[in-house]
């Protein structure tokens, strides 16, 4: 597939999926009933919000926690301005976030509906560069990704992308704190 830049490219929601998912939620949880027309508009708004999430930038916060970076961070502090390299072997990054759907009828806010996006990206390896004790860039190669949108415990949409390509080198500006 082409290069992945935002979360919408890994999972998106149709109006039909939203409508059917909301119908399947337990009624005692106050699950809203939305018409087909409203579901179509709501799904598109959720998809637009997913398109705002920078996948590489978000995953970089996980790489910054790698224990393998600690030695490189120490080495980089001994040689200011020079990159120290570290390699991470096979690993997963798991990301969750919460899309929130808001509806206004005129100026009156209706109760918001909260969703969950879960993403698991499996990488064979990643090369990381540390400068002045901070993670400056990552070369991750491609990933196998599964992403889903849930409402409560109900999965509304799920998509597997076996060969998701990120940038060959993700440059982090500003560089990320390690740990």
């Amino acid at each position: 597939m082409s290069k992945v830049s935002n979360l919408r490219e890994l999972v998106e929601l149709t109006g039909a999926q939203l409508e059917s998912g909301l119908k399947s939620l337990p009624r005692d949880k106050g699950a809203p009933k939305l018409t087909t027309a409203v579901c179509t508009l709501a799904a598109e708004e959720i998809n637009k919000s997913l398109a705002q999430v920078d996948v590489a930038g978000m995953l970089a916060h996980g790489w910054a926690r790698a224990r393998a970076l600690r030695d490189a961070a120490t080495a980089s502090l001994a040689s200011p301005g020079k990159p120290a390299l570290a390699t991470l072997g096979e690993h997963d990054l798991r990301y969750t976030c919460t899309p929130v759907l808001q509806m206004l009828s005129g100026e009156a806010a209706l109760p918001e509906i909260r969703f969950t996006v879960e993403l698991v990206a499996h990488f064979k390896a990643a090369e990381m560069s540390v400068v002045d004790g901070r993670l400056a860039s990552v070369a991750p190669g491609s990933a196998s990704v599964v992403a889903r949108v849930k409402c409560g415990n109900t999965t509304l949409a799920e998509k597997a992308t076996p060969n998701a390509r990120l940038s060959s080198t993700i440059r982090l500006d500003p560089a990320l704190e390690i740990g």
Partner: protein
Amino acid sequence: METAASWLARWFGPKRALQVAAHIDPASSTIALEGGEAAHPPLTIAAHIVPGRVELLVRKEAVHE
């Protein structure tokens, strides 16, 4: 004049109002109510992301030669 939204909230409470308001056709300017139709204000729909967290699970450390 009272808006349909405040009418709904007053009679059904905010949670139930959402369910009733869901029957609003966004392309229409009226809402079907028992006993007739009432004008409703435009329905605005928006979504935003509350950032979450990312976890790293290392399965195999890199092999260094």
